[in-house]
């Protein structure tokens, strides 16, 4: 099993551009999560999903959108990128909430 995969690994965006961060898991997990982590800080939950077709806001959802059309995929969309969105983005999945989360390798995003 590949676990949780994320693409791209790195990306530089100009202010105002848009992009989609991809996340796929092959463990048939119900829950999937998107976090951002700024330098030297903890993880902040952006959005999560409890299953296909169901998403919920986390702590910092503004400026982002998500969808969950399949169990495996949970893309994160950035519209009108801003410098404040410069961060490392981690995707994770778990069988149920509060169960062990498996993390992807992260996407390092810079907005200039």
């Amino acid at each position, binding site marked *: 099993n590949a676990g949780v995969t994320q693409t791209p690994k790195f990306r530089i965006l100009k202010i105002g551009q848009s992009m989609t961060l991809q996340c796929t898991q092959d463990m048939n997990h119900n*829950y999937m*999560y998107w*976090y951002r982590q700024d330098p030297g*800080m*903890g*993880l*902040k*939950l952006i959005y*999560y999903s*409890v299953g296909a077709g169901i998403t*919920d806001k*986390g*702590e910092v959802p503004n400026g982002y959108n998500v969808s969950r059309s399949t169990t495996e995929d949970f893309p994160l969309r950035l519209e009108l990128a801003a410098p404040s969105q410069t961060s*490392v983005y*981690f995707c*994770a999945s778990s069988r*149920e*909430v*509060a*169960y*062990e*989360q*498996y*993390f*992807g*390798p*992260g996407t390092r995003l810079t907005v200039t």
Partner: protein
Amino acid sequence: LAKTTQPISMDSYEGQEVNITCSHNNIATNDYITWYQQFPSQGPRFIIQGYKTKVTNEVASLFIPADRKSSTLSLPRVSLSDTAVYYCLVGSTRGRRALTFGSGTRLQVQP
């Protein structure tokens, strides 16, 4: 969701036992306590989870007193490779609401 409080940082030396305490005063009946470890440039990795008393695995032990208002992650005989950030999370496996990570405890192990 139960709010957790951890020390911001800790220092230790190789070979010592390290105990990191997490306070969670408003823990609910159905809540479990979970600890994660994060190395630089990597996503967090699950270490251990428990509900009450003591849980031990090949990496760590988790001590939870009877009132469950705190928990202690114990790392025996740490090495330089244990230098990382450690997060305590509290939440129910029955609910639907996702847990939050907080700021964690930065452990620095010196030679």
